[in-house]
Each structure stands twice: as structure tokens, then as C-alpha cells.
């Protein structure tokens, strides 16, 4: 029964992993990757590590891949047919790396056969929520804190990149209908800290005042 389930999930995982690299459509690849994560989570459950399985699904399938799919949808990469020939020089490199990988796996398999260790059947609570929590907040506290600071740095970095340019103050918005702009934006002569609001009635007027072209190329035609 367990072997059957293992074959099912492992096969699903390998199939999805192959699909990730084989698909031409980036969205199909992304969905296949979600499939890989979910089958991995199923395997974790079978290995008595339900916490890792749940976190795998929540973090990778539920958050990171949602963002990836989001970006693919926004950019709509499907439209541009990429050239197949451009990356041809990478093929020998890929073959070489694949050979190294297969050699590694073969080595591991052989060494497992050679130096067989009889597994001790002591009950283990590794992988349960309790053991992970207590280890994380005692023995591995420093790496845990450092990781969170690393993530904080990434957030700050993303904010800095996104905010670069600083064209508009926080209270200026281009919303169709009533526009509210600060006086300092409308008239360069006044002090930049003059935040008196100026109202415009249409998006066109607001865009003209801001000096940006808000119209799409389609509309201009």
C-alpha cells in the first residue's frame, strides 16, 4: 500500500519536473512546478513529517508560485515566440552537467549498497511541529534570527527599488474623475514642500499637469 502511494507521488513528481523543463509555455511550466511541490509535500507526509509538508504547500505552492504565476500573467510572455536556436551553445554544457548529476546519483546508490547500515528502530519525533519549534527557538535560534534579518533586508531592498524615481508624492493619484494634485507638482515655481491640493476634473487634465502620457498606444492610433 505504502509502496503504491510512493510510486504514485514519486511518478507524479518526476513527471511534473520533466514538464517544467519540457513545456514551451511559461505558465504551463509554472503549473507543473506547483505539481512538483504538491507531490513532494505528499512524500513528506508519507515520511511522517506533516509539518514540513504543510509548510511546503503554504510557502512554495501557495505563496511563491502564486507570485510567479502573477508575474507571468502580467507580462503575458506567451505572446513572444522565443528563438530556439539562440541558446544552442548551452546544449553541450547541459549534457555535461546532466552526466555529472547522474554520476553523483549512481555513486550514492552504489555507496548505499556497499555500506549498508541497518536502521535503528528508535521512535523519532523529528519532523513533528513540537520538535521543530523547540529546536528552532533554542539550538538554532541564531540562524533563525539571521534568516529573518536577511528577509527584512530583502523587503527593504524591494521597497527601495520600487520607490526609486519618486515622481509622485504619496497623496497624488491618477484616478479618473476627480484628481487631487499638490500645488508644488502643478507649478514648479512654488516651494516643493507646498502640499496645497489642486483639483482637476479628468484624467487627461491630470496627466497633462503631471507631464506624463497616460494613454496606451492603442488609443493614440
Amino acid at each position, binding site marked *: *500500500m505504502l509502496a503504491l502511494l510512493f510510486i504514485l507521488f514519486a511518478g507524479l513528481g518526476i513527471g511534473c519536473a520533466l514538464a517544467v523543463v519540457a513545456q514551451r*509555455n511559461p*505558465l*504551463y511550466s509554472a*503549473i507543473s512546478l*506547483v505539481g512538483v511541490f*504538491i507531490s513532494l*509535500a505528499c512524500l513528506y507526509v508519507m515520511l511522517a513529517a*506533516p*509539518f514540513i*509538508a*504543510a*509548510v511546503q*504547500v*503554504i510557502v512554495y*505552492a*501557495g*505563496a511563491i508560485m*502564486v*507570485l510567479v*504565476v*502573477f508575474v507571468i*500573467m*502580467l507580462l503575458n510572455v506567451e505572446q513572444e515566440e522565443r528563438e530556439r536556436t539562440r541558446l544552442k551553445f548551452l546544449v553541450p554544457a547541459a549534457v555535461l552537467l546532466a552526466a555529472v548529476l547522474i554520476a553523483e546519483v549512481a555513486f550514492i546508490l552504489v555507496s548505499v549498497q556497499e555500506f549498508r547500515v541497518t536502521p535503528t528502530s528508535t521512535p523519532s519525533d523529528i519532523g*513533528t*511541529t513540537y520538535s521543530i519549534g523547540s529546536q528552532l527557538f533554542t539550538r538554532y535560534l541564531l540562524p533563525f534570527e539571521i534568516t529573518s534579518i536577511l528577509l527584512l533586508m530583502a523587503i527593504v531592498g524591494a521597497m527601495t527599488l520600487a520607490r526609486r524615481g519618486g515622481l509622485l508624492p504619496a497623496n497624488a*493619484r491618477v484616478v479618473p474623475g476627480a484628481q487631487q494634485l499638490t500645488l508644488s507638482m502643478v507649478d514648479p515655481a512654488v516651494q516643493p514642500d507646498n502640499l496645497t491640493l489642486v483639483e482637476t476634473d479628468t484624467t487627461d487634465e491630470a496627466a497633462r499637469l503631471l507631464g506624463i502620457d497616460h494613454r496606451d498606444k492603442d488609443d493614440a492610433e
Partner: protein
Amino acid sequence: MDTAIDIALKFAAITVAFVVVLLIVAYTVLAERRVLGFIQGRLGPNRVGYGGILQPFADLLKFILKEDIIPDKSTRFIYFLAPVVATMAALMTMIVYPFGPEIRIPFTTITIPLVIAHFDVGLLYVLGITSIGVYGIMLAGWSSNNKYSLMGGLRSSAQMISYELALGLSLIGVILLAGTLDLAQIVENQSAWHGMRWNIIFNPLGFLVYLTAAIAETNRVPFDLPEAETELVAGFHTEYSAMKFALFFLAEYINMFTVSMLATTLFLGGWNVPFAEDIFGRGSFLFGIVSAIGFLAKVIFFLFLYIWLRGTLPRFRFDQLMDFGWKILLPLALLSIFITATLIFLLPNYF
């Protein structure tokens, strides 16, 4: 042999649970239309059967018989996959909720637990499957090859990512109080004080944040931006018709049902009914029945709340939605964690 019987029993339990849930969901749709009718000063559907009692089946028949239109330039495979993912993810969380305590069949010693799967990390499982559910909507929006659908899908994913954070954080308080992620254990912990030691007493802020974020997660009014009909025709399911549309419809109502069950389980004591244990005695048949009915009543209260909100609240604007999620709900969720943790630290004997 025992495994085979076990598996057969589990399948039977899952089937029963799904059928019951789908029936309740079907009648939630009817209730929604009748209650909305009442709120808006009209009757609502009352012709099919006594008081409209057969309306869900008439609707189902209509969905099956309608023409199934598939847009020419859709991405076919994903277009078919999306409603399946949405419904499956909605149904999958059903198996970890404890609908009631162990029930003993009268005159025998056989006990049946009213929960399908006892899962050590049930709460995380629910969160994980819920986060998979967003793919259904996103993929539907993308594969339809329609700008309205795409806008709906994008809005939905942005909204669900944002509100998932507040939702997850609002549950931390309950996890702190219970000290476990096992839903059955969390319910057991709330059965003190004659079945009234509900987590909402210690963590009311977390409850409110959860309730708000859960409405946003299920794309219901006032957070139904992904399908705002005044702006996006019908949002992500614009191009879906017949049974595929019915699957999205179903998924939305099942999601309503599951978040209501989670709210009941985590904050309102699950199947604990005040004084039921003193009257019927623990482990008796009647106790099980009364507890299960109590659970259902609390869930139905939340469903009614959803319908009530839909009848009375206007829709957010999208930037308001984002501001509310990130600048108000998220800090409030953090505050609720802080308050709960402080309580537990100061009064360790009570928790």
C-alpha cells in the same frame, strides 16, 4: 485486510461528508436568495416546491442543460483545469474539521469519531489547501483570453496574497492558547467551563481580524473585487458557462462554508454546546447529536452573517482594499498576537 476495511470506511465517511456539505451548500444558495429578497423588500424564489425548497435542484438541472460555450482562443487545457482546481481545493479541507465528538451507537460499544482524518497539523493543512484554491481563479482569468477575466484573476491573486497574511497571523493567537495545530485538540481545549471556554473570550481581536480576512479570502461582498460586475462584467468567470460556471459558483459557497467551519472550530468552541455535557453526559449518543447540531448551528450563523453583509454593504475600491489589508488588518493581527502572548506570559496558570 484491516487496511482495506479502513480505506473503505474512510471513503464512506468522505462521501457522506461531501454529500451533506454539498446539500447544505445548495441550500445556502437558496437561503442567500431568500434572505437577500427579504432585505431588499421582495420575495425571492418561492415557486419550486413548498417555499422554493426544490429551487437548488432546479438550478442544478438548468446548469447541466445550458449550452457549454468554450471561447475559441482560450488556452484549452488550463481553461478546463481551473474550475476543477477551484472546486477540489474547496472540498479538500473538509476532511480535517471535527463535526462533533466521538459518537457511541446506542446499545453497542462501537464509537464513531465525527471527523474524517485526525491530522497532527490540521490547521496548517487547511491554510495550505486554501492557498492552493487561488490558482483556480487565477488560471480561469488567464486562460479565458479576455481582458475582464484577466483583470479579475489579477485582482483576485493580489487580494488573496494580501489577506492571507492577516488571516494566518490572526490564527496565531488561537495556536498560542491551544498549544497545538490539531483541530480536534483545539476544540477539546475549549470544552472547559461547561463547554463555554471559547477562544473568542481571550482573543476577540483575532476573531474580528479572521472574520474580515476570511470574507476577503472567499471573494465575497464587500471584497468581491475579482468579480465586480460594474467594472469587470463578471470578472474571472466571464467566459465560463453551464456546468463549469456552476463549479466556480459551488467553490465559492463551499469556501464560505469552510471558513465558517474554521471560525467555529477555532473561536466559537467547535462542537461545544454550553451545559450539554452536564445534561447528557460525555460519550452518550445524545451528547454527540446535540454537539453536532450545535456545530452546525454556529456554522449557519456565520453563513447568515455572510449573506447579511452581502445585502447591506457596498463594495470597496481596489486601492482602499489594499490599504485596508496592509495598513489596518495586518497591524491589528500583529497586535492580537502581542496581546495574547502577553496574557499567556503574565497569567501562565490560566492557559
